[in-house]
């Protein structure tokens, strides 16, 4: 018989209250999204999580050139106060807890929310919710930045300083480790970069608030984390983050109050590991990932949103979102999860795992610190993430990293889930974009233009004066009727625009022997061409998820091509100009936002106008088969989707494509 010194009570005296349950939702316009929210709340959802479309996230109105094809696609389009009003119609904002996935334009959307609440008769002091507002990870992973790092960090600091005083229940920032994992981060990198990022934010705020307010500021910083399917290690990761956060609060910022140092986080579990092949398996993955963030009581998530099973196929329908919500409800209300104290308390295995992660994370944080902190180390971190992701893909290709249904157990019956006419996804009505263009024009014509001009002039003045907080002028501009594009353009004019580092140049090569055959092919075709096979890789539209494009670029280099990597947020004209000027033999485009149907034909047209119509175009992204067929008809040479994980095969096909074209031309010459 083993003797236990003191056995803690096995059950809590009172069952815990469940976390906030949300689904990341929003599409088309405010009216349609409002209907969706009301439906979700009626089904037992306890908070809202607003998905904005890419123009709103990057600061463009629906009628601007870069917004083309993207309006209402990956979220709701919000251009002005009228939209924000409609979005929350019939939803009392003093009772709602609203999370907004908004970063570069967070100050603006928060201002619209504050004014919309004010119109409902709710003061800003009563508002509860979160603005994501984490700009560094936009440079590292998500790509929806608008301004250079310095001014962006000021906007982040200003929103924090404003909310701590005036919106005390608001979480002004979610430090996001989520997107780092999506970009390929290992658990150690995810912890280290998120903590380094938090330190950069806190340092920026500490220059803009009274020092005795730093405890309150620290207490309002929350995190947005990821959880992959290796759920034991993922849980250990959260425990390690809690330890580090407590340490940073105490040692770096002298935060005395223990409650202020508590590690608080919301979560969306992993999308990177969700598969297009046998998509029903994703339901299991999501359930296991939810365990990572709920099992141990001491680091249980405050708010959870789960992806839908069909995320790798396209946008989820209301039914798909309901299925995700039901998983949370089963976990919280049917299981006994909430009955117990922390079940890992005293576990040697868990403590060992935590120590291991802490050791790695501390070392990595030290390195970032030596580079001058997270802002200065963006290039380094970006390169490290691209490299980690490259390694992951190589292991999947080699079969060392097993993904069921993708590189193992691929035999499958036809899935009834995707057999419906809609292909199992939500398709945004293509008429939405035109509606939105008309709506914003109407808004502009109906408002008091002089008041808007004055508000924007004041905004510009405050932007120039670093000692003032941007929020009061932003709230005034929202009230006066300015638009998302106007607010952003005013700040772009003052702050300048920016392009983030691509991180691809530093990524290591794949071991040579694996690629020898492909390299020989590239050499052979390059000899026939007279110069090295050259490819342009870039992303049209506003979607900033660049992992796929980056991995294609790195591999193309590794097999011996000259790769012009042009990065994200490109107009069709930019792509065509580069293709012509650079003399490339093939163009590779990547789109994940669902705007391929509009943007790819525009790129083909622009290429023809630039006089390089004959250069073959390949496209990769989340593209349903019906759309892929249409793209091929329009002249696209090949379409790749997430199920095409074998980069070697894609490279081989690219080389073949160029070789065929070269021999056809040689034939024509002869």
């Amino acid at each position, binding site marked *: 018989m083993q003797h236990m010194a003191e056995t803690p009570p096995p059950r809590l005296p009172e069952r815990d209250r469940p976390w906030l349950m949300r689904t990341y939702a929003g599409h088309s316009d405010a009216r349609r999204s409002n209907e969706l929210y009301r439906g979700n709340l009626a089904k037992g959802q306890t908070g809202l999580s607003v998905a904005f479309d890419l123009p709103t996230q990057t600061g463009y109105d629906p009628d601007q050139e870069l917004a083309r094809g993207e309006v209402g696609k990956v979220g709701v389009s919000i251009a002005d106060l009228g939209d924000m009003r409609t979005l929350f119609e019939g939803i009392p904002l003093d009772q709602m807890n609203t999370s907004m996935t908004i970063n570069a334009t967070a100050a603006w959307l928060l201002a619209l929310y504050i004014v919309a609440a004010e119109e409902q008769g709710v003061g800003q002091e009563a508002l509860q919710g979160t603005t994501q507002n984490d700009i560094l990870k936009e440079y590292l992973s998500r790509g929806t930045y608008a301004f*250079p790092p*310095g001014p962006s960090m000021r906007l982040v600091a200003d929103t924090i300083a404003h909310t701590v005083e005036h919106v005390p229940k608001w979480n002004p920032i979610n430090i996001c480790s989520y997107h780092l994992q999506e970009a390929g981060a290992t658990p150690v990198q995810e912890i280290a970069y998120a903590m380094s990022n938090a330190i950069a934010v806190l340092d920026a705020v500490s220059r803009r608030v009274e020092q005795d307010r730093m405890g309150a500021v620290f207490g309002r910083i929350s995190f947005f984390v990821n959880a992959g399917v290796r759920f034991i290690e993922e849980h250990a990761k959260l425990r390690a983050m809690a330890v580090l956060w407590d340490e940073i609060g105490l040692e770096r910022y002298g935060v005395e109050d223990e409650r202020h140092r508590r590690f608080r986080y919301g979560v969306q579990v992993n999308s990177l590991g969700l598969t297009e092949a046998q998509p029903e398996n994703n339901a299991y993955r999501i359930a296991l990932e939810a365990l990572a963030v709920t099992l141990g009581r001491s680091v249980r998530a405050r708010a959870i949103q789960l992806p839908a099973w069909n995320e790798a196929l396209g946008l989820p329908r209301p039914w798909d979102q309901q299925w995700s919500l039901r998983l949370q409800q089963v976990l919280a209300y049917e299981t006994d999860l909430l009955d117990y104290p922390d079940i890992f308390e005293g576990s040697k295995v868990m403590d060992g795992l935590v120590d291991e992660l802490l050791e790695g994370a501390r070392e990595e944080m030290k390195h970032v610190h030596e580079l001058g902190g997270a802002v200065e180390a963006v*290039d380094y971190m970006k390169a490290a993430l691209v490299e980690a992701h490259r390694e992951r893909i190589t292991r999947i290709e080699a079969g060392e990293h097993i993904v069921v249904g993708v590189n193992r157990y691929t035999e499958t019956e036809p899935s009834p889930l995707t057999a419906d006419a809609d292909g199992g996804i939500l398709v945004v009505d293509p008429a939405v974009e035109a509606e939105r263009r008309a709506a914003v024009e109407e808004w502009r014509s109906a408002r008091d233009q002089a008041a808007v001009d004055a508000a924007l002039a004041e905004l510009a003045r405050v932007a120039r004066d670093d000692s003032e907080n941007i929020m009061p002028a932003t709230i005034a501009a929202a009230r006066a009727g300015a638009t998302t594009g106007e607010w952003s353009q005013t700040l772009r004019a*003052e*702050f*300048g*625009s920016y*392009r983030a580092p*691509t991180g*691809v*140049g530093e990524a290591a*090569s794949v071991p*040579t022997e694996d*690629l020898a055959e492909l*390299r020989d092919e*590239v*050499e052979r075709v390059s000899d026939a*061409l*007279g*110069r*090295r096979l050259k490819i342009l890789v870039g992303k049209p539209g506003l979607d900033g998820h660049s992992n796929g494009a980056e991995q294609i*670029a*790195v591999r*193309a*280099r*590794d*097999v*011996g*091509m*000259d*790769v*012009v*990597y*042009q*990065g994200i947020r490109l*107009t069709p*004209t*930019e792509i065509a*100009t*580069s293709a*012509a*000027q*650079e*003399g490339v033999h093939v163009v590779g485009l990547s789109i994940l936002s669902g705007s391929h149907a509009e943007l790819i034909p525009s790129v083909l047209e622009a290429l023809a106008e630039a006089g390089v119509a004959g250069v073959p175009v390949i496209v990769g992204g989340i593209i349903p088969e019906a759309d892929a067929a249409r793209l091929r008809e329009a002249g696209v040479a090949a379409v790749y989707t997430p199920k095409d994980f074998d980069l070697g095969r894609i490279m081989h096909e690219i080389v073949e494509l160029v070789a065929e074209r070269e021999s056809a031309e040689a034939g024509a*010459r002869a």
Partner: protein
Amino acid sequence: MPEGADLGERLRAGDLGAAPAVLNLLENRSTAARAEARHLLAAVSPSALGGEPRGHVVGVTGPPGVGKSSLLSRLVAEWRSQGRSVAVLAVDPSSRRSGGSLLGDRARIDVDPADRSVYIRSTAVGDRLGGLAPATRAAASALAAAFDVVVIETVGVGQSETEVADVADTVAVVVQPGSGDVLQFLKSGIMEIPDVLVVTKADLGRPAMRALADLRSALRSLGARETALIAVSSVSPPTGIDALAEALDAHRASLDLPARRLRARRLAALADFAAEHGDRGLRALGGRRAAVRWLEQQDPGLDAAALERALAARAAATS
């Protein structure tokens, strides 16, 4: 394949749209293309033009991460506002590991894609060690017949500015505050004294002023009175860009252009010869210095290709 002579004619007529085909041809190593390239270069040679090509060839070089691309974005905008056409040849030094390369610079130079008077081309260094891409020298002199400014952008310090100096009319070395190695390289003579020295990130204030002072005293102790020293900031509001453009123009105005271009052609011929024939070829010429002395005695009217052929003939005769 386009006719080299036609492309040369288009450049002489100021047709900027010929640039992509010119580069495609000059980069092409096939025998047929090289023959056409000779026709092209002959068509834009000083003897065919009746003088040096009028474009200003500017070398911009410096260590990675100092802000060259942001600087170039601003500088191109400045030149465009003066109505000048600009070609940028961005040479990527780094990644010739697998034979392939990643050319990321284009993404960082911010220009209006619809502006037909700006041309940007990225090239890998190629198989040649440490230097310019094989086609870059030829491209710079060809494009100078049509563009007002031709920029050759390279990365590195201590070696690359020497290479660029062999081909550019004016060399600007770009450094950022706190880069002490540049100061050391300059003092110790590892690095040649540039025509213009640019300190970026002037918005940092004190560190930038300090860097300026250090460089100024280093230049003074080296007796380099002609080198212009300019502080710039590429973040909004940009500063110093107009002063930099003026300094580049002032250097060009003070230059004996035919002499510098003649030297560039001779060195280009030697570089091409060395790439083709290696150390053995150089030994046959009695070494690099002897080869340069011999080149200096040749007809100033010969273009680089003709000079290279003459070197090859001489090497064959002596070995």
